[in-house]
């Protein structure tokens, strides 16, 4: 003890600062949202960006640097952020408003609902730290954002998986007439779906992999985890299909019904969200309404305020790591 020096002190391996979704050595792309928006803004002069003191943490700073005259820093005021975006949209701009998902969903909901969604205004709400993507604890973990926003009429909800999808989603949601809420992965974002020849379309689910024993229906980075889990399961001769559902609302009902109705598979919905009110319950309701009754399971965050800690620790603890996904599916077969 007495012989330790400052330099010799080992770096902590369970720090809350460890917040990358990428596995060691995994391919990533930096700031896919910020770069895609900046590229798109060169073609579309109506695009403007706003942030509530989180441009740097939502990758919007890239746009702000390229187009300072089209960037509005609103300060730490999320209600103002959303109402200003509404006014700008009324005057013909296409505002991309960024903050953290907790602040949009919890603090600014009334403004998103009434000032933006009720008037079908062309505002794109782009929010970092969705679900469990930070170890800061409940103040920053938006575990119920989808549950809140699913209840809002007119609002399209996108939960992209990776950098490839975010790059494609940015021009798609800009071209879409109406309000959009998109969950954002920021910084060095894993690159996965390019290897599947995947193309993002609003409202479209995509079967990325087929399998005979389980159908995993997933959104966001849980699709990446589902694909990794499917690889693990394949080693045990278990076939898991992965249906990626990046648009939570409106749901691609036809595709989900088509895949879930195929006999002989359990249906598992995997999401980076509370078990209450997210994709799992949306799919469950859809299947029940249509008389489809497979063995149905959910991989989701518990209905609790979650712990603080390092992301890998928390993902394992709450069952959304690739290994935990594979383990759970195997247990259900």
């Amino acid at each position, binding site marked *: 003890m007495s012989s330790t020096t400052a330099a010799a002190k080992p770096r902590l391996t369970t720090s809350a600062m460890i917040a990358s979704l990428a596995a060691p050595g995994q391919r990533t792309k930096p700031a896919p949202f910020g770069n895609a928006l900046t590229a798109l803004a060169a073609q579309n002069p109506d695009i403007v960006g706003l942030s509530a003191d989180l441009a740097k943490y939502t990758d919007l700073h890239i746009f702000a640097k390229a187009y300072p005259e089209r960037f509005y820093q609103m300060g730490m005021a999320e*209600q103002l952020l959303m109402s*200003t975006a509404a006014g700008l949209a009324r*005057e013909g701009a296409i505002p991309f408003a960024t903050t953290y998902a907790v602040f949009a969903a919890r603090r600014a909901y009334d403004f998103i609902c009434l000032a933006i969604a009720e008037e079908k205004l062309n505002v794109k709400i782009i929010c970092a730290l969705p679900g469990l993507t930070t170890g800061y604890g409940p103040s920053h973990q938006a575990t119920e954002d989808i549950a809140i926003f699913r209840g809002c009429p007119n609002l399209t909800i996108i939960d992209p998986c990776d950098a490839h999808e975010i790059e494609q989603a940015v021009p798609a949601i800009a071209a879409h007439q109406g309000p959009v809420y998109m969950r954002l992965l920021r910084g060095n974002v894993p690159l996965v779906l390019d290897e599947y020849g995947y193309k993002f379309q609003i409202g479209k689910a995509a079967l990325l992999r087929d399998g005979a024993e389980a159908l995993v229906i997933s959104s966001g980075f849980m699709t990446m985890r589902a694909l990794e889990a499917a690889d693990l399961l394949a080693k045990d001769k278990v076939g898991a299909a992965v249906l990626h559902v990046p648009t939570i609302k409106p749901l691609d009902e036809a595709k989900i019904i088509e895949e879930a109705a195929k006999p002989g598979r359990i249906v598992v919905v995997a999401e980076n969200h509370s078990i209450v009110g997210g994709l799992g319950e949306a799919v469950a309701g859809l299947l029940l309404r249509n008389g489809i009754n497979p063995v149905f399971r959910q991989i989701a965050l518990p209905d609790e305020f979650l712990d603080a800690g390092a992301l890998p620790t928390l993902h394992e603890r709450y069952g959304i790591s690739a290994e935990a996904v594979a383990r759970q599916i195997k247990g259900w077969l």
Partner: protein
Amino acid sequence: MNQISNVSLPTRAWRIRRNALRMGEVQGQGYIAQALGIADVLAVAYFHALTYRPEDPEWEGRDRFLLSIGHYAIALYAALIEAGVIPEDELETYGTDDSRLPMSGMAAYTPGMEITGGSLGHGLGIAVGFCLGLKRKNSKNFVYNLFSDGELNEGSTWEAAMAASHWKLDNLIAIVDVNDQQADGPSSAMSSREPLHDRFTAFGWHVERVDGNDIEAVVNAFDAARNLGEPKPRIIICDTKMAKGVKFLEEREMNHFLRVDADEWQKALEILDQGKPA
């Protein structure tokens, strides 16, 4: 560009009050006192200050008038009818099924209604967005935002007040109706709003404070706000009297939502007509 007309502003205000009373009678109750109180301000806004085309409410060159206080819709409908934006015969549909004139103002329902109000505390922030949007387009039009003293309770109003001066929004003219009544009673008993002039001055605004039922004073305040050379937002604080012009309604306590007996509507109209401007 003022509306060229031989009709005096007091007559416009009297007609707005009349329209509002007739709408109130359709429902037998409602936000009559607010409409009567703000009628003079709306007369000045729509027949002195605003640029607009009654036949084309979406005309790009119009000044924007944002009603934050959704339940004041009855007052704005009354003014829009007088302005020729809404046909007078629609007045009888106020608040009824499938009417274009719902109880709380909504953009999608009514020509000339720029925003959906009613969730109080939204208007000023939305106005900031309108102002920035107009500046993007190099428009010289003004954005007017009518909100209430009750909305000064909302933190979002003050977020917007800070932002408006930060962005030097010289195309923003806010109008706050200080009638000292909210749903549960007097505004001043709920949250101390004064000194309001000093507060907005400290927030970086140009402030005019007038008796909102003194048409000449309101005209001067609007002119001062529009003609100010400084790069700052402007606010006209209008102290108004609830139910102004109908004495027996003015004297009712808790008149945020007035219930008026069937025979009293005619009486109210008669009292109003006795004060008809020459």
